[in-house]
Structure formats: C-alpha cells, structure tokens
C-alpha cells in the first residue's frame, strides 16, 4: 500500500467516517442546505443555527464516501461556536490546504481538519472533501440574504 494512500485514509478520518460527530438534522428554524456532488452522487444536508453572527450549532446528514462524510463531520465540529466571519476564513484555509497551497495554520486551531491534508495528493477526491464546506458557505450566505 502506498504511503499516499495511508495519508489519504488516516485513522482520524476513518474515525470521523465511522463515528460521525454532529450527525442528524437540526429543527426549529435552522438554516437548511442541501448540496450534491453531481459527478458522483454524494449528497449532504447541512443544518445551521446562526445567532448574532455566530454559528451556534451545525449538523449534517447525507450519503457519500469516507472523505466527504469525514470532512462534513470535521467541518461541523470546527465551525460550531465560531463567528460566521471566522468560519468563512476557515473555509478559505481549508481550500488552500486542499489545493496543496501553503495555508495559515496559526490563526485557528485546525484540529482534526489537518488530517485531510493528504487529499490534496488525490485531485479526483478534492471535491468530496470540500462539499460540506461549500454547503456551509452557501448556508451563511443565505443568512446574509435574509438579513
């Protein structure tokens, strides 16, 4: 087995895949975003509670490969409690990481997210990893439109 593959499927990713955090759907007026990866059929439903410019809670549901579901789990964990502005900055940092660019690892505690770094070596899988983050961006964008 190549070491690239081991980097792609690190233990912490498999842990998020097997034991997803914040799985399920938030009710009671939460923002609801459905997003597909049309090339492969992955599907995510993200529900967000945003109050006073801060993401109070974030849940996800859906179907997909290990990378897309683990990334969704990690994303909800990372943005929960963050001001929207910071969550969006974190998304940019994540995209940099996916593209294999230098990324800012000092401004925020990236935690588990950094385990996904290995995805950058697998261009065909980057879209799996970014799906949940795109959904989050769309969700807080929706919030902006409402206000």
């Amino acid at each position, binding site marked *: 087995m190549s070491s690239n*593959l081991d980097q792609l499927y690190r233990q912490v990713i498999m842990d998020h895949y097997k034991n997803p955090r914040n799985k399920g759907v938030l009710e009671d007026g939460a923002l609801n975003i459905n997003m597909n990866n049309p090339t492969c059929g992955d599907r995510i439903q993200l529900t967000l509670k945003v109050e006073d410019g801060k993401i109070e809670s974030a849940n996800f549901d859906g179907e997909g*490969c290990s990378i897309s579901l683990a990334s969704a789990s990690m994303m909800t964990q990372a943005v929960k409690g963050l001001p929207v502005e910071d969550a969006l900055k974190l998304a940019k940092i994540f995209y940099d990481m996916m593209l294999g660019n230098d990324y800012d690892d000092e401004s925020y505690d990236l935690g588990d997210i950094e385990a996904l770094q290995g995805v950058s070596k697998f261009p065909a899988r980057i879209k799996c990893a970014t799906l949940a983050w795109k959904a989050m961006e769309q969700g807080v964008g929706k919030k902006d439109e409402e206000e």
Partner: protein
Amino acid sequence: MSAKEWRKLFPILDQEVNGKPLVYLDSAATSQKPIQVIETLDKYYKEFNSNVHRGVHTLGTRATDGYEGAREKVRRFIGAKSTQEIIFTRGTTTAINTVARSYGMANLSEGDEIVITPMEHHSNIIPWQQVAKATGATLKYIPLQPDGTIDLQDVEKTVTEHTKIVSVMQVSNVLGTINPIKEIASIAHKNGAVMVVDGAQSAPHMKVDVQDLDCDFFAFSAHKMCGPTGIGVLYGKKALLNKMEPVEFGGEMIDFVGLQESTWKELPWKFEGGTPIIAGAIGLGAAIDFLEDIGLDNILKVEHKLAEYAMERLSELEGVTIYGPKHRAGLVTFNLDDVHPHDVATVLDSEGIAVRAGHHCAQPLMKWLDVTATARASFYLYNTEDDIDAFIKGLTTAKEYFGHVF
C-alpha cells in the same frame, strides 16, 4: 490475433500508473485508441487538413473525400441503406438531442406519450423530459424486471396508441443488459410510434444492423469504439429525416440564402451546420476499419468470456454485490460491503487499476437499485484475464485496507 496481440496496438496501455502496470477497465466511459487511429489523425493534420465541400483546391478535395469516405464506412458498419441517412454529430448526446428537438418538438402534443426505461443514460432521459415539458406530452417508463431486464409484456402494456416515440438503449452502461431492440421496435411500430435507439454501448461491441433492428433512429459515439472524442453518428430513416427541420443553422447546411429566407441542402448535410468534424469523422472511419479487421464477432466473444470470468472471480469474494442480469455485455457493476465505491476506486487507482465510480449518468437507475453510487469495471478487446486477476487482487487489497482501518 489474440487479445494480447490486439493490446499491443494501443500505445497508451504500455505504461505504469502509480508505479504499477496500467490496467484500464473503464472502456464503457471511453475506449483507448489503437495506433492506426492515432496515425490517421496525425496524417490528416500533417498532410491534407482543409475545409470540406467548398475548396476547389487539391487539399480540399482530399479532405472531402476522406470525410465522405468515412460516412460510407459508417453506412456499411451499421447496415444503413444510404449515406444520406448518416449524420455526423458531436456524439450520442447530440444525436439524441437532434431527434428530440427536430422530430419530437414538431410531432408531439398534449396527450401524446414518449416511452423510455429507468435504465437509460441521462442523455436518453433529459432530452425527452424537455420535449414533454415543451409539448405537454407524457414521459412514461417501461418497468424493469428485478434482474434489470425488460419483459416484452411490459413493453406491450406501456406502449399505447398515444405513444409517438419509444427510446431505449441497446446495452445498459450500468447493468450490462442487452435489450431486445428488434422486438421493442416492432411493438413501437404496431402502435404507430418511432423507435429511437441509444447505441453508445452496443455499436463498439457487437454487429449492429439498423435495417434488421428496423429502428427509425440510432445514435452512437466514436470515442467508445476506438475513435476520437467529439464525433458521433445519428442514423435516421431517410423518409423521416427528409421531413425534419435542422436544429442548427449556418454555414455548410444551406442551399440558397436570401435576406429573409433560406433553403437547406439535401440530406445528410442539412443537419451538419458549420464546419464539420472532419478529423473526427476520418478518425472514426479508421476506427471502423480497425474493428472490422478484428471482427465484431471476435470482440463480442472475448468480452463475453471476460465478463463471465470477472463474475466468477467476483463471486469468490465475500461482501460483493453485483448488479444486473447474468447474461450481459462486457462490464460488471458492483459494490463492496462497507466500502464506498469512491474509496474502492481510489484504492484500485493506487494499484494502477482504472475503474469508474459514481452514478454513471444514470441517477434514476441508481434510485431503482436503491444505491447512491456503484463501482464499474468495463472491458474491451484489449483486456485480458490478467487484467481481471489484477482487479480482483486490488479489490482484496481494498477490503483488507478498509477492514484494517475500521
């Protein structure tokens, strides 16, 4: 010649991917190209690239001869009566869209029906959805048997006197089902409907005779049959094509152009607006020469054997679900328990093995199968049992790998 020797004619297959010999099992997505086709394209651009049907000069004549010569090869390849019935398009998708936009929009209205199946590729679903929306016609589906085949009794029940178009794929790109086109066409005709055939997965692998099938339209792509991308064919019966309006207007397809009105060239050129896909058509012609040289019957035989062998080897593995009927074309669509097809494909790729993972442009069929995605290994004349052995070994690795990390 054996498959091992055919394989040597495909330069791309002689390489390593991720440090392993390439095992290409994604020919249903696109086939590889033999050296004869590559050299034909090279020669065209190096020696006689020119526009067709207009230049008085020598290169223009050579290009026109090459382009129209390819049309004659296609005519022979699918057994059409006349080259007037052979229209070059961008591919299967464009061919079906042409029938939908030209024939469908003009001949359907409220109360009429279009009949397709749930196993169709998106390119044989969405054009009909659009026609139905625009004309008020109804889009109906022939139900599938549990093994993914079509029962002719269901065709009899679904196709009615209100049906104007029946459109079915000859071979399923997911299930590998080989559909009884001739019989379906006969039911369509009995009810006064025209029969459209998506031949994208059949023309590359088996002898097609459009007169024997008695279909009214037949669509296929060059790139799945050893030819270049960007070129395909729409066959249509002359009597129908003559009554149809072009869908693209501009250069090449006109007879006379006035300030307010224009008239069209005769068949097939009235459907080929703009500078045609000259190199592509000539490349398709070379691909047809290549396939006929090997013999479509020989190709089908090799692929049947490979599919059987793959099914047998796959059934030795635990936790594998195979989709589709036992009797099938040269492809196997499957899932491994607890491993998402994307992850299967990524592990196989790290072993140099190329398979497809996803919904295969057949979302309604995925819904029918009750899965979100599947993995698919598809075979062509250059594949061997060694490829399948490597594939099975790769799957074992994937199972172990994911078994280990969980």
